[in-house]
């Protein structure tokens, strides 16, 4: 796949392609927009309250199945955006879903469900952990998933709700 913007520049002797920079900025913008949507709009409030308690949200006049549909749409749309953004950076194969799927779950659980900030932090922790393992340990490329997931499990042992997760009331 040809990159959208060609060329690169160097910082500290590391080649940085403009495409990578563009991807990074797009990711930041999308995360910011998502946070704004969830925290500062009526729809975001509806989504969050539905997550907290479906029945009570329904009683408060929120059409919960519609909210569920909109949430599903937003999340699938964002996943699709991620896919199209990542295309110029990697090779495409029918089995490319596996690694992102696992890492996505690990990131979300590490950061805590229901927290954009948590996902952001979790993604950086796991991403850097993977990269460091690959470069520092012999046979590291096989162990990168193991180390990242072990970090996730260790964090969950200390904080079962993840780094920034909200501990939901236990449903009775």
């Amino acid at each position, binding site marked *: 796949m040809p990159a959208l913007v060609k060329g690169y520049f160097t910082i500290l002797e590391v080649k940085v392609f403009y495409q990578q920079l563009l991807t990074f900025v797009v990711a930041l913008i999308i995360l910011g927009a998502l946070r704004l949507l969830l925290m500062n709009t009526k729809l975001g409030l509806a989504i969050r309250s539905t997550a907290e308690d479906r029945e009570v949200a329904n009683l408060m006049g929120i059409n919960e199945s519609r909210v569920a549909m909109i949430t599903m749409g937003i999340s699938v749309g964002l996943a699709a955006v991620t896919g199209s953004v990542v295309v110029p950076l990697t090779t495409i194969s029918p089995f490319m879903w596996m690694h992102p799927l696992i890492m996505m779950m690990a990131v979300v659980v590490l950061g805590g469900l229901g927290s954009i900030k948590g996902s952001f932090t979790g993604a950086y922790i796991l991403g850097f952990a993977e990269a460091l393992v690959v470069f520092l340990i012999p046979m590291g490329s096989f162990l*990168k998933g193991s180390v990242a997931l072990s970090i996730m499990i260790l964090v*969950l042992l200390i904080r079962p709700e993840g780094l920034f997760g909200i501990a939901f009331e236990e449903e*009775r």
Partner: protein
Amino acid sequence: MGIIGFYLRKFWMIVKNEVLVLPSRIIVFLFFLLLLLLPVFTQDPYLLRILILASIFAILAASWDLLSGFTGQMNFGHALFFGVGAYTAALLNLHAHLPPWVSIPLGALGAVLAGLIIGIPCLRLRGTYLALTTLAFPIILMGIIFAIPGVTGGELGITGLERLARSRVTNYYITVVLMLVLCTIMWKITDSNTGIIFHAIREDELAVRSSGINTTRYKLLAFCLSGFFAGIAGGLYAHFMRIAGPSTLEVSMSFQVVIWAVFGGIVTIYGPIGAVFILYPLLEFFRFWPEYRTLMFAIVILIILLYMPEGLLPWIRDKIETECPRCKIRNIATRKTCRICSAEIE
């Protein structure tokens, strides 16, 4: 002579009064008979191979149901137990030269250990966190296996294991009888007091704790039991295929178990077993059109689950049997009155 006649009459009375009154029990009886008598009629190695693999996976799916269906501890990494069982049995067989009938139980004990190791940290987690954390364990183990190819064979796995038995028919009898026995044991466990406590933990853990039951111990017990049965399945698989490879630990293996169990209906031990015996041969049968094999497989599963959200086997059971409103005993659907308390059934 008289005593044999007495026991024969007693056996016939049990069959007549307990088995033949309910169609579901007749089906189970026929299933046992068919599986045990099949090699008398045909010795087609391909068919026997499919049924051997189906019985191995039936043990696996039923053990998932014991942990995730009954106890409600959603385990998306059930392949871990399978893989640990397979690798332990393979390593013991290859390096310690233990025969299969020793290495398979030891592999199952290894899987019990794995169940303890992942059970203890997972006790603090629930719901989505638990499901995703358990998903991580087989992937971690797979990374370790790839990282030390000297011991584990890396991507190629461990080959050259001892056969279960010389002939395919003996293999068939070993796996099928073991499957029937183990699944009956699992079904008995879920029917016992322990099983009722497992049920209660899934429904309302707080209530169980407040009635003075140590739920931690029972959840660990569920992890260990499930690990034990799945480990036996793994060891059987390793010795039957004569290879223990990383495919036993794959994510798709974990999900396949979940698909089987949900298709057959969770919280019933018979559901996953029946589902494996339907779906596994079905996937082979779809070979007549190889390009669309998995697509047709997925469509069948989706359609069945769309119309029978509780799973296939409970749906069939509800069609052919009704529950007496007064004494809660199951009756055949054609009866107008209950067979025990003769209450009207509408």
